[in-house]
């Protein structure tokens, strides 16, 4: 939404200039990348206004280091706005947002985003899409190539290195999106309804794969979704957002042990009660008072 507003007054060139200013804030040292460091997300009293109405009001949210948190909420509860603020793509109006103790004022190098509509460059092959952020960040060519190839193999697209996004199915496109985020070796991954644009069956396959990937490369993850099942399947903790204004209305630990599979989660004894509780919370927030 903000992009549209911004583009009303500024061209992409000017946006780039603004981003250049934000970039001056450097990220914390990446020494702790291997797992010992702090890469927690913390939002305290965050507000976001569009005109006179608060899209997000007094939002508190924290995600611990190496924790996987899903945010569920009805359309218009500001969950995507929240993710964009965490990604440094939108500004918050008051309160504080920090990642690994660093205030977010622009995109941080330690954070990777997986976009709902994949965000792949149509003129770049799978390999070049995955390698681009590393090359842009100044990673040496050989190193970038090795990491890109590894990440692409990890998501099962080894044979698609030289294909263009238009030649891939939706599920494969989002695998490329995941590979790009993986190859950046981020400390924090933000996923904005990443599986919303693929069909139901592919969605379950991708959830399964994400469970596998995350169980190996545990890192701090915030996953936005409107699917209760998806949230329970993937998350250590589910945060429920209410609408008008967007705020946290429930915060539930998912007591299902890992490793998980989509099927094992469904069979788990706490699955039905959890689903019931989240659904109840969403139902009441969606109703006009």
């Amino acid at each position, binding site marked *: 939404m903000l*992009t*549209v507003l911004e*583009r009303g*007054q500024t*061209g*992409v*060139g*000017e*946006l*780039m*200039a603004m*981003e*250049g200013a934000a*970039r001056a804030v450097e990220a914390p040292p990446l020494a702790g*990348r*291997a797992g010992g460091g702090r890469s927690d997300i913390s939002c305290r009293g965050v507000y976001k206004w569009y005109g006179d109405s608060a899209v997000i009001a007094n939002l508190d949210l924290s995600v611990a280091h190496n924790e996987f948190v899903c945010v569920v909420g009805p359309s218009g509860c500001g969950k995507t706005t929240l993710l964009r603020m965490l990604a*440094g*793509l939108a500004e918050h109006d008051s309160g504080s947002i920090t990642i690994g103790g660093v205030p977010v004022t622009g*995109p941080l*190098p330690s954070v990777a*985003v997986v*976009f709902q509509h994949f*965000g792949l*460059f*149509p*003129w*770049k092959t799978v390999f070049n899409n995955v390698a*681009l*952020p590393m090359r*842009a960040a100044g990673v040496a060519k050989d190193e970038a190539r090795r*990491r890109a190839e*590894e*990440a692409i*193999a*990890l*998501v*099962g697209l*080894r*044979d*698609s290195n030289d294909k*263009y*996004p238009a*030649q*891939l*199915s939706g*599920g*494969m496109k989002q*695998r490329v999106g995941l590979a790009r985020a993986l*190859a950046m*070796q981020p400390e924090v991954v933000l996923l904005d309804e990443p599986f919303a644009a693929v069909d139901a069956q*592919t969605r379950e*396959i991708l959830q*399964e*794969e994400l469970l*596998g*990937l*995350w169980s*190996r*490369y545990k*890192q701090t993850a915030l996953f936005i979704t409107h699917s209760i099942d998806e949230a329970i399947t993937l998350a250590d903790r589910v945060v429920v957002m209410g609408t008008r204004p967007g705020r946290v209305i429930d915060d539930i630990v998912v007591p299902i042990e890992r490793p998980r599979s989509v099927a094992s989660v469904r069979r788990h004894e706490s699955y039905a009660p959890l689903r019931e509780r989240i659904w109840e919370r969403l139902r009441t927030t969606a109703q006009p008072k």
Partner: protein
Amino acid sequence: MSVQRVDPRPDASSVAGSPAAVSEQALGQDVREARRRRLRRARRRFLAIRIVSLLVVFAAWQLYGMHTIAILFAPITTVVHQGYLLFVNNGLGNELGYSMWTFAVGYAIGVSVGIVLGMLMGAYRWAEAAVSMYVFALYATPMVALVPIISLWIGFDATAQIVIIALFVTWPMTVTVFHGVRQIDAELMEVSRSLRLNRRQTWVHVLLPGAVPYVITGATQGVAMGLVGVIIAELQTQLSGLGSALQTQSQTYHTAAALAVVLLIMVLGVSLRAILGLVHRRLVPWLRIDRGDGREG
């Protein structure tokens, strides 16, 4: 998710290598193969339609030409023969060379100015605010209207002709490139910011490649506009090139020869378009993916 900590076991290195993922890819292969076959069939069918259409039109031209007075029209065989004679006896080759030379220079200037102006207007709102009204005003003005004034300023020589041709090409080019840059997905700009591309990287990896299809569209329109410019410039300033040949032949009622010049200009336009089509396929491989309807991007 540090990729460095990859599981050393080779068959465990692909989490996504699950049967489901593999079959999805295999299915994609089948579907694509079927689509390719459909595309080949469609292409053959369209080629056949094209040939039949040409035969019908040429036959009608021939028949009508044979049954009308020579001063009004001529059969296509006569026209082609007259064209051959013009090349051999009247130095049409030189005229063609002259026209192509002014066209090439004017076209190159027009395309370059259009790319730069269009890109700046598309990427920077201040540039759009500063110049868009002139660009759109000139785009909406028939350039023919400016020809007498340009002659007044620059004269009637080749320079004036080149300026006129460039003017014909520049405005459609500018407007097309401007819209192209503006249409680059807002989400992709957001992705670029998220990936922390700097200004130069954003131009190189996002804006320029994203604008290429529009540059080629503008350049293709520019061919047609540029050829209009060539003939108008040659008729309205110093009589020269193909314009002069056309004028001479039609004013002396050598209708078949005049038609030959027109046919030559047509062939020129079609060939230049075809060349740009090849350039398009070369420069925009990511759009060259068959859409299954017999056309290509």
